[in-house]
């Protein structure tokens, strides 16, 4: 694949500095600060209605900001009272419904944003992008004759054509088959990398986010919960919302019994704790399904199988401990227990994630 790859320095660095966005006096997004280094791919992840699309539209310039500032490559593009219009931002965008122009063929769609280029350059760029997305030879096809996946790639090529410094993707995979989504996300990521463009994706699907992004912002109700790598979101969630939204798990009550040790219904769990958790403090412990192992020979904790879900390689069991606490546990599918079986468990914590009692959404 020969792609005239660009100097990554031409890609944008995105900085959001304490940004509020809203419509008609109502703030949808509050105090968001994050920095995406040039050439990296970020993701805004959250449930529907959390404000992620609004934030993306603010970065694109379709919405103004009510507070704070958005900077692209150090240049202030949005601040209260000033919004650089989207057509001047060198920001490409791929839309959820692709928004291909029905009156233009594939080549016309891709060339839409580079109409001022010389004819030769323009044709070369169109050919190059079609090769990149694997649709060479489709120049004269019209959008309605293409499949959803093809339309999606044309939309991507159209957005990339003017070599934007930043590419925004608004749930671009949500109209695709579930099985295809992560594959396509990976493919698009490779194309972005080849183009050396900074990217920002909006999605509510964590698998998509994990497959696509270097850094992920988890948004909850208009506020930023955590801006981190996928690994850290799973293993070091900043708050209960992230712990709950990313991956599976249960949160069970516990009490600090000595330094770096918590007493719970699962027994004593050891791990480094912050200094503010002095012995005697009541707190909550995050238990991921892989923190527990089913082990009828060596396990010391008794539990009863409440329900189970077959997931191919493994089962996800819902278990009830003797004091009534319910937890989740992953076990290989060759151990096939049935509901109301009694099993034994062993702890398998690699690290300890705790939240102060009564804390529901704030950072640790």
């Amino acid at each position: 694949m020969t792609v005239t790859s660009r100097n990554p320095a031409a890609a944008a660095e995105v900085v959001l500095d304490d940004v509020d966005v809203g419509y008609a006096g109502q703030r949808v997004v509050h105090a968001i600060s994050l920095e995406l280094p040039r050439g990296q791919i970020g993701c805004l992840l959250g449930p529907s209605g959390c404000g992620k699309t609004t934030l993306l539209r603010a970065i694109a310039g379709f919405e103004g900001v009510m507070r704070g500032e958005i900077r692209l490559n150090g240049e202030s593009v949005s601040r209260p009272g000033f919004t650089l219009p989207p057509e001047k931002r060198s920001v490409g965008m791929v839309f959820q419904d692709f928004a291909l122009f029905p009156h233009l063929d594939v080549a016309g769609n891709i060339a839409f944003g580079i109409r001022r280029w010389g004819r030769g350059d323009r044709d070369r760029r169109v050919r190059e992008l079609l090769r990149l997305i694997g649709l060479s030879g489709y120049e004269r096809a019209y959008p309605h004759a293409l499949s959803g996946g093809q339309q999606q790639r044309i939309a991507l090529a159209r957005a990339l054509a003017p070599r934007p410094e930043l590419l925004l993707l608004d749930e671009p995979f949500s109209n695709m088959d579930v099985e295809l989504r992560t594959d396509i996300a990976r493919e698009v990521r490779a194309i972005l990398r080849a183009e050396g463009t900074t990217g920002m994706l909006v999605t509510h699907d964590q698998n998509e986010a994990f497959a696509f992004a270097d850094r992920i912002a988890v948004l909850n109700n208009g506020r930023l919960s955590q801006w981190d790598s996928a690994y850290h979101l799973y293993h070091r969630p900043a708050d209960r919302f992230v712990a709950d939204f990313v991956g599976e798990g249960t949160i069970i009550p516990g009490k600090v019994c000595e330094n770096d040790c918590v007493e719970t219904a699962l027994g004593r769990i050891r791990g480094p704790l912050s200094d503010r958790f002095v012995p005697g403090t009541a707190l909550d412990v995050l238990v991921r399904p892989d923190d527990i192992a089913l082990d009828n020979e060596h396990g010391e904790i008794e539990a009863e199988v409440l329900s189970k879900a077959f997931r191919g390689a493994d089962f996800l069991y819902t278990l009830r401990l003797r004091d009534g606490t319910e937890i989740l546990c992953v076990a290989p599918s060759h151990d096939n227990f049935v509901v109301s079986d009694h099993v034994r468990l062993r702890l398998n914590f690699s690290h300890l994630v705790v939240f102060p009692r009564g804390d529901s959404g704030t950072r640790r």
Partner: protein
Amino acid sequence: MITEATSQPAQAPRRWLPGRLARPGIWQITAITVALVLTLPVLVIFAHVFVPAGEVWSHLRETMLGEYVANSLLLLFGVGVGVLVIGVPVAWLVSVCEFPGRRIFQWALMLPLAMPAYIIAYTYTGMLDFAGPVQSLFRDLTGLGFGEYWFPEIRSLTGAMLMLTLVLYPYVYLLTRATFLEQSVCVLEVSRTLGSGPYASFFRVALPLARPAVIAGLTLALMEVLADYGTVAYFGIPTFTTGIFRTWYGLADPAAAAQLAAVLLSFVFALILLERWSRMRARFHHTSSRYSNLPRYRLRGWKASAAVAACLLPVLFGFLIPAVQLSIWAARTIDHWMNPDFAQLVFNTFYLAAMAAVIAVALALVLAYARRMQGGLITGIAVRVAGLGYAVPGTVIAIGVMLPFAWFDNTLDSFMRDRLGVSTGLLLSGTLFALLFAYVVRFLAVSLQTVEAGLGKIKPSMDDAARSLGVHPLGTLTRVHLPIMRGTLLTALLLVFVDVLKELPATLILRPFDFNTLAVRAFELAGDERLAESSSAALAIVLVGLLPVILLSLTIERSRPGQRMRRRNGDSAQAEPIAVPAGTRGA
């Protein structure tokens, strides 16, 4: 020394136009301005409600008003019953039953739309009067002479009801048929599995579902009845519109004419409310998204003959007979109209109609785009109000245009004469400008509806996509919206063009001195009992009027959800069933 730099972020240079267009306000202000200007005539009319009633008005109220109201109500009632009795059954027949000629009838039943009521009225008058072909034939057959037999008088209230019914039933037919076609096949299938036969399905399922559409079609027809001037004037029936003309010209009392117009307007607004109410209840329409060809009931024997007769009669009397009669007259009077005068007349009319169409579509585009850019409540109301003119009879609009324009001209003229000693004469009233203004007020809704529907089909993400690719809002309009909407815009132009072509009362009042259109010429010649000579102009109107009817029939054919899907995916949908058997045979 360290100086603290005032950190002023570099402001990007902004070009005036795109920045301005992007800013909220401009579009909204434009929409409000257009709406205010276009509602001027209606506002003027309503303002006259508060003008102290003069002598003429009290005279009218004591003598004529009761008759106007009575005649208008009788007309509304008669035509209302007529269009329902014809429109609904034929719509059901061609949508759900199968009988010889059904496919032709489904578009032929729309033909009377091309026939303006005043033209059909004087065509029948010519055919049915004492010297006409019908009575001549009757006398020849019976040997009776003048005064020896009774023959129905077409120039009567009943005659007017018949004439209006014959050309207005297509409104009910069109809208009702559209809902019959849209009705999900599931509902009808359920009805059939539950043991309902064709008649029971019609009365228990299809008709209740179609009721909002029937009412909407009825309201449209009744608005035309209220707006009609040509027919009732020709038949000499005193109604509101003829009363307004009489007061305006005969009694020369503009204020009383405007007050009469205000009463007429209140009738119209009652109809609008009825229509709105019926639309609100239209929500239960689409209960299922599954569509397929309706299983048609095949009619045989006398039932099939009855169905053919039921569909043929309205087309025959509403279009074919008058069209043939007009053609015969036109052929007989060929020397009368094959001349430069007639060419000039056609040119005048087309020029005027084209101008009005372009202005109306351009304004519709501005309004619809304003709503898209800043679709707030206020813009929405402004756009809605700007489209109300379609409900307002041409007579009322003409009076509403004439009064302020004449006032402006007179005021300016006397001012200029006092101060400068120059007479400015008539600047607005009695010019093409006044006429075009009235046309736009009356027909903007036609273009607005079409353009809004077209624009509405373009997803907002298209706008965003264009802007993120470096195109400012105005560029988005020219490079994305207009090309996508080309067909829609042509349709809108055509619809306004034909409506203007047929318009009679406003043209009669507002046309410049000695400026004639086809409609005016046809009406005037007919009024002078020169029916045959008027036929060429009438025929020209009817022929051009056929264009939107054809367009409409094509659109409806494609509008059925299932139909459209199949057509668009025609290739793949057809390829599949063929590919599968081929594969099995090979194995």
